[in-house]
C-alpha cells in the first residue's frame, strides 16, 4: 500500500500496576482495512483499542493516529484527532436516561458549540440527520424513545447511529456483539461491514469469535499475552494458529 497508515503502534508496551497488558507491539493499519483482533480474555485486545482512540496513553513506545503522535498532543489537539475515530462498545456506553435522539446527536458533540448542544437537549436539533442514521440502522421508530427502554440489540444500533452521525474516518469496535445473541450478532456485523465498505472507512474490531472475524474482516491479528502471535488474511489463518492463540502458558 502506498498511503500512510491510519493507525501505527511503534514498540508499544502498556503496564497496569503489576500486569503487563501489551508487550512491545508493532502494528500498522491502513485506510479501508477491516481488522479483527482475536485472542483470549486478558490478551490485550481492549487495551490496544483504548490506545488507538487516545483514552489511554502508552507507558512505553508511540501511538500514531492520522499522522500524529498521541502522547505529544495537547488535550485540544487530541480531541481533534479523536473526532475522526468512532468507538462502539460491548455494553453500548449510552446515556440511559436520555432519549435516543440525544444519544445519536451526541455524535455531533465534537463539533457543536456549547449553546447549540445545550439547546438541543431541550429542543432537539438536526433531527433529520439523526432520523436518517436511525433509519440506516433499522430502528427509525425509536427516535424519541428513552434509551433505557430499548433492548440490547436496539441499544447497539443506537450506538452505531451515533458513530454514523459522528462520521469518523475510522471505527473501533470493542467486542461489539458479545452482549447479543447469534442472530443479532450477525445482523449488527453485517451492518458494520456495509457501513465501512460504503464509505471506505477503516474498521478495527476485537471479536470473541474467530468465525465472525473470518467472515467479516480482511485481516486477522491474533494477540496472546500482550504480543502479536500472527497477523494474516483470514484465508491463511489455520486451525493450528487458532489453537496456539487460545492455548495458555502453563
Amino acid at each position, binding site marked *: 500500500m502506498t498511503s500512510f497508515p491510519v493507525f501505527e503502534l511503534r514498540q508499544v508496551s502498556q503496564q497496569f500496576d503489576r500486569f503487563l*497488558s501489551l508487550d512491545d507491539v508493532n502494528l500498522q493499519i491502513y485506510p479501508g482495512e477491516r481488522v479483527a483482533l482475536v485472542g*483470549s*480474555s*486478558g490478551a*490485550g*485486545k*481492549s*487495551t490496544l*483499542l*483504548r490506545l488507538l*482512540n*487516545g*483514552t489511554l496513553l502508552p507507558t512505553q513506545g508511540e501511538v500514531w493516529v492520522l499522522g500524529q503522535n498521541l502522547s505529544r498532543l495537547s*488535550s485540544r489537539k*487530541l*480531541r*481533534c*484527532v*479523536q*473526532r475522526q*475515530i*468512532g*468507538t462502539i*462498545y*460491548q*455494553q*453500548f*456506553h*449510552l*446515556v*440511559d*436516561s*436520555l432519549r435516543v435522539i*440525544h444519544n445519536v446527536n*451526541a*455524535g455531533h*458533540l*465534537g463539533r457543536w458549540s*456549547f449553546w447549540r*448542544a445545550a439547546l438541543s*437537549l431541550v*429542543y*432537539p436539533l438536526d433531527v*433529520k440527520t439523526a432520523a*436518517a442514521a436511525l*433509519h440506516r440502522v433499522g430502528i*427509525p*421508530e425509536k*427516535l*424519541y424513545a428513552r434509551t*433505557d427502554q430499548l433492548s*440490547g440489540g436496539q441499544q447497539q444500533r443506537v*450506538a452505531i447511529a451515533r458513530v454514523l452521525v*459522528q462520521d*469518523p474516518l475510522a471505527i473501533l469496535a*470493542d*467486542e461489539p456483539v*458479545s*452482549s447479543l445473541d447469534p442472530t443479532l450478532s450477525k445482523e449488527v456485523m453485517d451492518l458494520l461491514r456495509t457501513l465501512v465498505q460504503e464509505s471506505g472507512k477503516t474498521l478495527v474490531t476485537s471479536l*470473541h469469535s474467530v468465525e465472525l472475524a473470518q467472515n467479516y474482516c480482511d485481516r486477522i491479528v491474533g494477540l496472546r499475552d500482550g504480543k502479536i502471535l500472527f497477523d494474516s488474511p483470514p484465508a491463511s489463518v489455520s486451525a493450528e494458529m487458532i489453537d496456539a492463540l487460545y492455548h495458555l502458558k502453563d
Partner: protein
Amino acid sequence: MNQPLLRPSLLNQRFLWGSVMVVAVALSIYQAGLFQRDWLNWGGLAQLRQFFQASIQPDLSPEFLHLTFDAAVITLAYAVCGTCLSLLLGLVGGVLTSEVWWQSVFPRQAQQRPIWLTVRAVLAIPRAIHELIWGLFFLNIFGLDPLVAIVAIAIPYGAIVSKVFSEILDETPRQPLMALLNSGVAPLSACSYSLFPQAFLDLLSYSFYRFECSIRSAAVLGIIGAGGLGYQILLSLQSLRYEQLWTLFYALFVLNGTVDFTSAVLRHRLGSPSRLDLNLRRANRSDNRGLDKLRDGHPPPLDGYLTHSGNAAYLILTRGQQRQSGDPWVMLAGVGALLLIPFCFWYVSADFSKLWSPRTVQLLADITQSSLPPNFDREQISQMLALSWQTLTMSVLAIAIAGIGGILLSFPAAHNFFLPGGLLNPVQSSPSGRLLAWGMLLLTRAFLLITRAVPAPIWALVALFVLFPGILPGAIALGLHNLGILGRLMAEVTENLDQRSLIALKAQGTPASLVFLYGVLPTTMTRFLAYILYRWEVCMRETIIVGLVGAGGLGRLLTEQLSSFDYSSVIVTLSGFIVLTFVVDWVSSRMRRSLR
C-alpha cells in the same frame, strides 16, 4: 421513513411539575417579603463580624476543653443509644410492615393486605413528628433526664427505619424465600435463611446513614436542655461568648466529620457504596439483573472489564476479595462498635425504669385527659391555617436554597470530578492545576461539613443577627443545614456514576463542558431531584426546630403550647402539622414518580 415522527410535546408531566416548582418558589419568596420590606438588619453586621472573627481564636483553656470533650461524649452517647434502640424498633417494625412478611405468614391475599396497610399507617404518625417535638413532650414527662434525648431519637427514627427496612425487604428477590416456604419452613426461620442475609448489606448500610443523622439530632436535642454539645452551644451563644462557641463548633465538626468519614469508608469496604438509593433502587436492580443475565450468557473478557470502567472494575474485584478474607478494618469497626455501645449506655446512665414507672403512666394518663376534647375554636383554626401556609413556604424556600446550593457544590466536592483522571480532567495536568483542584475539593468539603454539622436552630440564631424575625431566617437556617447534607449525598452520586457513557463521549473528542452536559447531568439530575424532594419532606418536619428559636410557622406555636402544657391545643396544632406533612409527602412522592 416516509413521514417524519412527530416531535414529542414539551408539555409533558415533567414540564408541568417543573413549573409547579418554579411557581412554588416564587410564591414563597413573595411570602417571605424579600422584595417588599426591609429584611436586612444592618445594625447586626458588627455582631456577625464578631461571631466570625471568633472562629480563629476559639477558647482553648484546659477547663473549657474538658467541658467540650465531656459534652461531645454525651452527644455521641445519645446518638449511639438512640440509634441502637431505633434499629431494634425498626427491625421489628420493618418486618411487621413489609409486604413480604405478611405474604409468608398469610399466603392468602385477602387476609394480609389490610394488616400491613394498617401497621404502615400507624407508623406514619410517629414518623411525621420531629425528634424535637418528641423531646419537648418527654421533657414534660421525664423531666431533665438523658432518657428524654434517647427516647426522642428512638421513636421517630424507629418509625423511619421501619419504613426503609420494609422497603428494602420488599425489594429483595424473593425466590429463595419462596423455595424455603414451599418446603414447609416456618416464616421466621425461612426469612432468617434467605431474606435477612440477602438484605443484610443494604440494611447495614442504611443503619450507618441513620447513625450519621442521629449525631445531628442529638446535637439539636441538646438545645431543649438535654445536655451535650447543642446545649453548651446555646448557652455560649446566648451569653455572647463566641470564642467558647467556636470551640464547641470545632468539636461538633470533628465529631460529625469522623462519623461521616468512618461510615463512608465502612460502606465502601462492605461493597455497598450508596447510602440510600431513593426510589431509583428498583429500576437499578432490574437493570443490574438484566446485565447479569447478559453476562451469564456471554461472559465478558477480563480486559473488557478494564476498558469500560478502568479503576472502578478493579475496585469491584478487590472489594470482593476483601470481603471473603475478612477485612481488618471492618473487623476493627465491629469490635469498636461492640465496645462503644455498652460504654455509651453506661456513660449516659439513663434511668430506663422511668419508662414504665407508675409516675410516667400517671402523667401520660393526665396528658391524655387534658388533651381531650381537642380545643377547636374558630380563631385558633384560622391562625393555624395562616401559620401552615408560612410553614409550607418556609420549607419550600429552604429546600430551594439547599437544592441549588447542594447541586452547585456537589461537583467540586466529588473526588472524581475536577481532579486529574476525573470525569472532566484530561489525562495530564500541571502541578498547579492539581493543587487548585485539591484545594477546591477540600474547601467545599469543609464548607459542606460545617453547614451540616451546625444544628439548624443555631444557624437560625446566627441569621437573626442580621435578619428581622420571620420565615426568611428560618428558611436560610434550614437551607444551610440541608445544603450540607444534600451536597454530600449528591457528591456521592457523582462519585458512583456509571462512567461508561462518559468514556464513550470523551473517546470521540467531546470537550469537557459537553461531556458534563450530555453525560454527567442527565444521569445525575434525576437522582439529585429525587434527593431534593426527599429532603423537602425532611425540611417540612424540621421547620419545627427553627420555629423553636422564633423563626415562625407552626413550630413556634407548637413549642409555645407544649411549654405551657396546653395539651388540648397541642393536639389540634399537631394534627394540623401531621396533615401538612402528609400532603408534602404525597406531592413529593408524585413528583419523584414522574421523574422515573
